[in-house]
């Protein structure tokens, strides 16, 4: 029970961070049809900007300044680069963000160095919030969950309850009509891209000190958020929410389980020795396969439900 509760809490908080990341990606994808390969790089930029801002003015201003800076960069990239290749089709759009991820990685290494930086949790949140079964639950994890849920509600309200959301949604499906009504559609796209980048940046501010801020951090989450988006259903925000929670929980649980197929077989009376066929597979512990679980999940979802958990259209 103790293991279960703690893993569940940790899993949900990791899942919510994944959601913060993938919501920006989903937003950009569903609004503009652009799969932003540099999304995880924006996450990394968010963490590094927050680190530098924290050094200057402290954590709380950084929480707002860093995502804003990332948003400005994202919007500028959309305006000066992405918009130019829009006429060439989807593949060049994807490729240009791929090139951007290279440049951001090199730039980060150039400015902040190749080793990790000392970006810490603020003193106010550095400590346990409460204790369950003798294990402390860090206050910062609760803060992470709080921000993610706040963000979810804010996006949902913005998209469904405001005039801006109405224009954004209409600009996706009927750009010409929206243009004719006097809205600046390219500017809407620029703002959406900037907004998506800001969400990634915010996740970076929150996740950078909960985990490690280093140049490899984009690569570690980069492919997982793509899995989240595919598993949840391309372009479905609620799907991304469900998928990120699922993946977060599954992965956290798997890391904590130390049993293997060999153990299961021996309790069933089978004797597995190093001579048995496929011994390498039998002796693998579940904790060892934790890193590949999201991808196995992806494959399973594709086989049994190709449009994703809550997706509405076939890709």
């Amino acid at each position, binding site marked *: 029970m103790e293991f279960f509760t703690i893993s569940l809490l940790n899993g949900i908080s990791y899942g919510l961070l994944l959601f913060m990341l993938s919501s920006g990606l989903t937003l950009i*994808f569903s609004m503009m049809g652009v*799969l932003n390969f540099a999304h995880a790089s924006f996450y990394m930029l968010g963490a590094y900007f927050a680190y530098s801002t924290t050094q200057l003015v402290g954590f709380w201003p950084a929480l707002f300044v860093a995502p804003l800076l990332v948003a400005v960069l994202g919007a500028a990239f959309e305006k000066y*680069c992405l918009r*130019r*290749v829009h006429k*060439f089709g*989807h*593949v*060049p759009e*994807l*490729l*240009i963000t*791929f*090139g*951007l991820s*290279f*440049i951001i*990685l*090199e*730039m980060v290494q*150039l400015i902040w*160095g190749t080793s990790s930086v000392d970006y810490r949790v603020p003193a106010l949140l550095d400590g346990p919030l409460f204790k369950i079964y003798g294990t402390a639950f860090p206050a910062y994890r609760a803060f992470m969950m709080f921000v993610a849920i706040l963000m979810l509600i804010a996006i949902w309200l913005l998209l469904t309850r405001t005039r801006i959301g109405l224009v954004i949604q209409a600009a996706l499906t009927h750009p010409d009509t929206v243009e004719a009504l006097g809205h600046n559609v390219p500017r809407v796209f620029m703002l959406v891209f900037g907004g998506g980048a800001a969400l990634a940046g915010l996740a970076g501010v929150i996740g950078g000190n909960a985990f490690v801020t280093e140049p490899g951090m984009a*690569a570690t989450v980069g*492919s997982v958020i*793509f*899995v989240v*988006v*595919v598993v949840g259903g*391309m372009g479905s925000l609620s799907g991304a929410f469900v998928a990120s929670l699922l993946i977060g929980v599954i992965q956290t649980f798997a890391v904590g389980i130390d049993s293997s197929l060999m153990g299961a077989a021996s309790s069933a009376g089978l004797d597995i020795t190093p001579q048995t066929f496929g011994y*390498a597979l039998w002796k*693998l512990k579940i904790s*060892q*396969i934790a*890193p*590949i679980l*999201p*991808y*196995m999940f*992806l*494959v399973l979802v*594709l*086989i049994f439900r*190709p449009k994703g958990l809550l997706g509405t259209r*076939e*890709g």
Partner: protein
Amino acid sequence: MSAAYYEFKPHNIGRWILWSLFALVLLVAPLVFTSSLSQTLLSQMGIAIIVCLSYNMLLGQGGMLSFGHAVYSGLGAFLAMHTLNLVSKNGFPLPVSLVPIAGGVASMLFAVVFGWVTTKKAATPFAMITLGIGELVWASSLMFPEFFGGEGGINGNRVAGPARFGITFGPQIQLYYLIAVYTFACTALMFAFTRTPLGRMLNAVRDNPERVEFVGYDTQKVRYIAFIIAAFFAGISGGLAALNFEIVTSEVVGGQRSGAYLLFTFLGGATFFFGPIIGGILMVLAFVLLSEFTKAWLLYLGLVFLFMVMYAPGGIASLIMMNLRVAAFGRLKELWVSYLALAFTAFIALLGAASMIEMVYHLKLNAALGPQLHFLGMTLDAKGVNSWFGCVFVMLTGIGLFEVTRRHFLHQWGEIQEYIELEMKRRQNL
């Protein structure tokens, strides 16, 4: 039995000349560049050409943007290495020259399994799924040290089995010629593939899947078969790489490698068959020579890539073909002054920018060596105002002059294109 209709099929002389030239280049290259470095480079280029061409079977011909192509070349390399070890340790009766084929067949089998899942979708979801599969294989490569050799990888010795005709594949030059034969054969086979009905269907699936579906073909099956064939050639290139380096580490299946294939296939030009050949050559030059020359090479590569996507989405091959068209209409000689001016001004701008990038890298990485650095024969002071001012000045001058020449060139280029269009219309009406 006589044909139902008469078909006039002239010998395509241009094509014969081109392929003979290609064979000649492969044959003569190590005789011209004789140093051991160039032999290594040439061998790697052959390997890169095969893998880029096989990648382009997906990207250029099938419209499938894969982020996991290294899975197939990498697994091919591992299986080829295991086969080689079987030959050398257990006396398995397979000539070393056929080991790459074993790698190709192994990759093909992997593609039969993985491709079934990946080709369920097209376009953007396809890209993400290949990325997922790539991560899956890469993570497993560290999980099964028995097969993948863990961090250290597995190694072997290519001098194995009985020597046929006195060829042991010990010296690099013998291996180079093996690679050259494979490169020529694979290139020819892949070109032949583009002419088969399946290759044509693949192009149709890329351009208009709905219509292909409507005509009665299964788009998914076409993509699946093409995927398997591409994996076969990728596996051959992996097998050749295994023979060449005599060691295979898990990074050959990693995402970085897949990204490099994508990047260079695109830079070379995915829209033309010969584009990836240019891409493969560039890949080796960038990875081996450029990385020796400067620490900032990944940054340069990213920037070049970004500019290519923005201004020449057809890659280098399309630039060549556009100029060939101008030459065919006999107007290329008007452009050479502009080209010279463009190259010169771009060089000035680049010089300024590169000096600054080098100074920043120097400050960051070699701060202990003092602020002085040597770059292209100049001595720059990374902490001095003069150097920085000079570089900014050079770069801004370069950019300004480049902009002026670029406008002039665009005007000239547009005029020539207009002339060509008119001329083509006129010839049609003749």
